[in-house]
């Protein structure tokens, strides 16, 4: 039996009996959940992140966005389903590829999760419980309701500006507009159609949530900033690119 199958078998039986942060998920929910991780050159961390996810959820699809390091092999070795973009298209494109794949596999819930180890599995479990209990379309992570470890003042300021921009452009009342941790019900994931290949996809997803009048709630998750994630994360100057991307797209409509 391969390492992949062992891990999948373990995870299938694990969570329905275990309590994570006081939350218990049934086997059906776990089996019908797909976690989507977009990645680009995350060879040094993806193995650990994928193993952590697979220990809780058997269905993990990692979308490699044309990495030039060994991220592809590491993700596959960890036991994830790995899809490969032949060229680098951007995180938004990779996310949509993963969502499409998950839906094709019959996912009832689709989780988007970052590749750099910022997110916590216990938050995913709690968000899944929330989306089920409250019959929501989407649950969005919020680091400002939850907590952050190691976030710089500059980033906090930038993210707060993004919240104001989102309020103006979509009307959504959020506390965190650029959190990569999200849980979609299938009916909502089917309506998500990311056209912004690059980083503006986070705002585009929120626009689509507003446009489709999806029911949503925020969940306070924990974001753990490490030196690695800070290095890989968005630069403040990207905020300008995001706004330009969104405006150009809007003009093109």
């Amino acid at each position, binding site marked *: 039996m391969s390492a992949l199958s062992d891990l999948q078998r373990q995870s299938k039986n694990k969570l329905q009996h275990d309590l994570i942060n006081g939350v218990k998920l049934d086997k059906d929910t776990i089996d019908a959940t797909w976690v989507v991780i977009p990645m680009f050159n995350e060879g040094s961390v993806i193995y650990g992140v994928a193993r952590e996810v697979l220990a809780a959820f058997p269905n993990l699809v990692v979308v490699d966005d044309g990495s030039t390091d060994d991220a592809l092999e590491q993700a596959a070795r*960890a036991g994830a389903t*790995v899809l490969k973009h*032949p060229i680098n298209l951007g995180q938004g494109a990779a996310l949509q*590829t993963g969502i499409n794949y998950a839906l094709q596999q019959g996912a009832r819930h689709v989780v988007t999760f970052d590749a750099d180890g910022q997110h916590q599995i216990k938050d995913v479990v709690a968000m899944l419980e929330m989306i089920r209990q409250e019959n929501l379309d989407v649950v969005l992570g919020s680091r400002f309701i939850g907590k952050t470890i190691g976030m710089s003042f500059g980033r906090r300021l930038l993210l707060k500006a993004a919240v104001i921009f989102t309020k103006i452009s979509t009307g959504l009342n959020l506390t965190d507009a650029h959190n990569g941790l999200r849980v979609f019900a299938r009916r909502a994931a089917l309506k998500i159609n990311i056209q912004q*290949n690059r980083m503006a996809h986070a705002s585009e997803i929120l626009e689509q949530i507003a446009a489709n009048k999806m029911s949503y709630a925020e969940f306070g998750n924990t974001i753990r900033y490490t030196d690695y994630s800070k290095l890989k994360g968005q630069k403040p100057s990207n905020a300008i690119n995001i706004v330009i991307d969104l405006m150009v797209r809007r003009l093109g409509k």
Partner: protein
Amino acid sequence: MTAQFLLTLGLCAAWLYVLTQPGVSSFLKLAMYSVIAAGVYFVWFPEHATYLANRIGIGRGADLVFYTWIIFSLGVLINIHIKMRNTLALLTQLARHTAIERPYSIPDKATAPDRQGSSSQAR
């Protein structure tokens, strides 16, 4: 006179280029032909460009040609941008289709090493 012949030749070449481009909308072709025709006319009758410039409040004919050229270039730029965006959308669809249809699997030879060993190499 030599310059006028050279400029006319250049504009004729531009005309041929537009003529042979597939998939360009009739409106855009008409706009390009008009600009080229106006260019040829003003090359041979520059005083008419100055007359026209004076009528619309621009001092010199050369300035009128220059401003028109800027506007025309901006139009071309927007057209190229839209084309590039459409091409990227198609490319994304193609890449997505390929990725979903053929998930990656580790080649047999590469399955042996354990992550513990390989991780130290990767880092």
